[in-house]
């Protein structure tokens, strides 16, 4: 043990504990504010969608314009996968709260696999959708919204991956599970956002 | 206290008089050459009167307070603990609200008047392109010109389009301005009331030559205008 560590150990010169002036946990509040900001980022993309599709006097009457098609069914199956992953995420969190470590890990892995499947399907969809970014404003908003969402899924998967690694090393317990809860909140947000994106781009 | 009020009012009136002189002695607006700008100028003066009043009031209180109640930097007494005054606070919420609503109503009326086209205005298409204007008279076999020629006293409806980027059609003496936007058409009305030559200026940054994207607007008598058009049609 080095002298420095020794010194730090003996003389604690840390700050006084801050007064907790709200019942809300700082990290949870931070995550919700971050999500509010993220929702507004999606909002700006939806605004672009609204201008291209509704306000623009030259908006296409058909969506998507001839001769293009969106793979509504495949994306629908993909939606089902992602929504299911929200439930497994919730199950994983509840399990670690009850101290059921195996169920927690199983839930996390299931969530991760479903999220990954979603992203993979999305990539395959991009490759086979039959149009590219330069094929008109409808393609811009299609790739814009789904791409923005895909990036969020990728970030979410990274967070889930971290949770899984730390989960296997036994860092979470019924008392300490913020590391699961926060990525979980984010993951639910990503799922809810997809339902909106799917409805706006594919269905309406 | 009475003496103080008199002094305060004197400062306020002094500032107000100076500002009024500044507002009146300099010619802040270009000479109006359109009916629309006449109305805008009335509105401008209305806003100016209110502005001079508010600025004089605030500045007078600041100057008077500093003059009356300034203490040396090392003074260590405190002022009277006045936390607020509900009546005053209501007053200075309500009065500005009334004033801005008055300006708002006046503005809305002017806007409506300036936006109401009479029957059969002269139709002119203004096309913005880096870095020149092209005016097309659709009533007269699409006669096109780089110079804008308008008959005196006749309402003109400009329909604006842009080829490449956003431009903004502005004749300072007409007081009317509108962007020419790629992909959509926009409109503005002008009724020239003064003979002469005026500048057409591009008011929206449109690239390297934005500063030099100017044209000439000429308001002529109706007969002259007819002659000019006929010459072009031929």
């Amino acid at each position, binding site marked *: 043990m080095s002298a420095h560590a*020794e*010194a730090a150990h*003996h*003389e604690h010169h*840390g*700050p*006084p*504990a801050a*007064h907790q*002036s*709200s019942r809300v946990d*700082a990290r949870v509040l931070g995550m919700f*504010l971050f999500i509010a*900001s993220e929702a*507004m980022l999606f909002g700006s993309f939806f605004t*672009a969608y609204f*201008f*291209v599709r509704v306000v*623009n006097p*030259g908006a296409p009457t058909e969506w998507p314009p001839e001769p293009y098609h969106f793979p509504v069914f495949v994306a629908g199956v993909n939606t089902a996968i992602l929504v299911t992953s929200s439930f497994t995420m919730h199950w994983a969190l509840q399990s670690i709260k009850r101290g059921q470590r195996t169920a927690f890990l199983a839930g996390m892995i299931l969530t991760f696999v479903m999220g990954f499947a979603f992203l993979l399907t999305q990539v395959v969809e991009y490759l086979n959708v039959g149009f590219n*970014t330069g094929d008109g*404003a409808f393609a811009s908003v299609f790739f*814009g919204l789904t791409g923005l969402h895909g990036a969020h899924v990728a970030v979410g998967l990274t967070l889930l991956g*971290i949770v899984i690694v730390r989960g296997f090393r036994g860092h979470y317990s019924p008392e300490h599970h913020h590391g699961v809860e926060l990525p979980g909140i984010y993951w639910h947000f990503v799922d809810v956002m997809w339902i909106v994106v799917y409805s706006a781009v594919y269905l309406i | 206290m009475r003496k103080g009020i008199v002094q305060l009012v004197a400062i306020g009136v002094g500032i107000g008089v100076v500002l009024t002189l500044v507002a009146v002695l300099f010619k802040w*607006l270009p000479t109006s050459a359109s009916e629309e700008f006449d*109305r805008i100028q009335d509105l401008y003066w209305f806003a100016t009167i209110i502005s001079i009043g508010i*600025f004089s009031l*605030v*500045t007078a*209180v*600041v100057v008077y307070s*500093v003059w009356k109640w300034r203490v040396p930097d090392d*003074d260590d007494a*405190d*002022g*009277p*603990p006045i*936390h607020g005054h509900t009546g*005053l606070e209501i007053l*200075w919420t309500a009065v*500005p609200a009334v004033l*801005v609503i008055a*300006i708002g109503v006046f*503005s*809305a009326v002017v*806007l409506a008047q300036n936006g109401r086209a009479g029957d059969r205005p002269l139709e002119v298409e203004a096309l913005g392109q880096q870095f020149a204007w092209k005016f097309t008279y659709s009533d007269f076999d699409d006669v096109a010109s780089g110079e804008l020629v308008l008959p005196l006293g006749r309402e003109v409806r400009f329909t604006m389009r842009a080829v*490449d980027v*956003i431009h*903004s059609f502005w004749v*300072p*003496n007409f007081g009317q301005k509108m962007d020419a*936007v*790629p*992909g*959509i058409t926009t409109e503005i009305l002008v009724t020239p009331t003064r003979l002469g030559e005026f*500048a057409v200026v591009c008011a929206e*940054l*449109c690239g390297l030559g*934005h*500063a030099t994207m100017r044209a000439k607007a000429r308001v002529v008598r109706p007969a002259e205008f007819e002659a000019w058009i006929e010459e072009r049609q031929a």
Partner: protein
Amino acid sequence: MTATHDQHGGHAAEGYPEHFEPPRGRAWTMAFGPGLVRGAWMALRVVGLGALLVVALRAWWGWSPYWDTHIVLVVGAMTAAPIGFLAGIGSFDYWLHYVSGRPTRPEDHSGHGARTWRDYFKVNTDHKVIGIQYLVTTFFFFTIGGLMAMLFRAELAQPGLQFVDSQTFNGLVSVHATLMIFLFIIPAFAGLANFAVPLMLGAPDMAFPRLNALSFWLLPIAGLMFLASFLVPGGAFASGWTAYAPLSEGQPMGQTFFNMGVQWAGASSIMTALNFLVTIITMRAPGMTFWRMPLLVWANFTTSLLVVIATPFIAGSQFFVMFDRIMHTDFFTPEGGGYVLGYQHIFWFYSHPAVYIMMLPGFGIVSEVISTMARKPIFGYRLMALSLIGILVLGFSVWAHHMFVAGMADWLRVPMMITTLLIAVPTGIKVFSWTATLWRGRIRLNTPMLFALGFVTMFVIGGLSGIYLGSVPIDIHASDTYFIVAHIHYVLFGGSVFTIFAGVYYWFPKMTGRMYDERLGKLHFWLTFVSFNATFFPMHYVGLRGMPRRVFDYAEAFGQLNFFISIASFVLGASFVIFVYNIVTSWTRGPVAESNPWRAHTLEWQVSSPPPIFNFDEIPQVVGGPYEYGVPGARHAVMSPAKEHVAEQEEVHA
């Protein structure tokens, strides 16, 4: 062992924790330890990785050509390199440790506090250090932005082109505005608040100190990106700070630096805002109810809400322009079915609230200064706080007043005009309350107070010209002219910059522990005040008379007045030199400041100057309002034995 312990105990007496020193040589630490050196080489290394990634993906996708300079630049130089730099200076060290699955480290506070000037060039988690980092950085960019203004004012002294070409002129104008907005006003307020807000709240630090450090380091990245745009072929971005599409879409490569720089600056301000909100909500000292918070805290609370909600919109707008530029999408190209005005709506949905982001913290600073220097409670405290919320709410409903002549839907004009004009009501409340606070006060007319009063009067002019511009018919004549330039400078220079100066002078003794030179401060104020008015007031006139903005050439008739404006602007630039001289000399050898030279009641003045490393030995108990001047026996807070700590420190210094 004991000897070493004692030796280090010497430092510990000052309250500074030990920095963690790796068991390596000095050279090794320089090159591979967290810091600017590692930041530089890691940034360079990942540029290559980014480029490789682009080429690999394009090859896999089958897109030719595999090498696209523009995309490589965006991914390699503007995304990967900054991340590499941040990793190199050590912003991510703790998080990477966590991510790799190792057990969490207890915080050792090794990244806390600054002992030498070198510590200011490292990742530091101390909100006071970060606040000063912010301020020094922002004043650096303020200087550069100001020099650019001098350059194009020299060009504008006469009609026609003299010094620079048209592209450079437009570039200078655009980069000037961008630096002043994104690298000076917004972050300078964040810096002042970073220093003051946790102290004012009775908190030991911000809620997320590591995030706080990261948000600072994003800032120089954004600033350098804006400046670097001058170096690429085609020159700097030249479509104005508003970067209207489709002009911005046809610009040379420099525009992309704007698109990406805004993302970094925006991310920085969102993170800071989030941090402020969480700090204010969860870390107030016991007894510090919302109605006992100083108005600076209120101001930063509302500002932060604006930032968190609005900033993503400018991110979106610049993403769309960039996609249109490099991925050939059609968001704003009418030929492809895009809608040009969409850009302006999305842009102004951020950039109008941004005006309040640049103003509300100034309101907070001025409230602190006026109340303290006039020795009176702020007049109508609750209404002052509520008017901030009023501006916050109204601020989201006025964006289209920037578009009265843009060709947007006619029916939007009158509602937007009414909401715009109504903003005068909460703003008026604030101005009248400040003047009422002066009334019968005991006014000490020192430098911060001069700037605060200068602000009140100049801001009224800016607000009143705002009424003209809010009225649609007048705006139709005056928009896009020098009247706008005058208005924005009365609001942002006479408004925001004056409050930043007021704040810097006000908290200077607290930040540095030394006093600035009062005579130089007053000279700075008067020279700035006079030359500011001489520069910007005539702009109202040339604008109304018919001079459009963003032009290098103009009608002969405006020649004399523009010459006058240019001369005045050089004086304005020179006045800043006095400020820099005053700050630098006072910081290094000014007289030692008392802990509370202004006899203010708010919490930051109840600790030593500069404050102890963890702000408070024990969290104070708040027992009353923050501005109870003149109320017999009134206290804002009861301090724990922090006084002893101060005494101890003075002993050490002696």
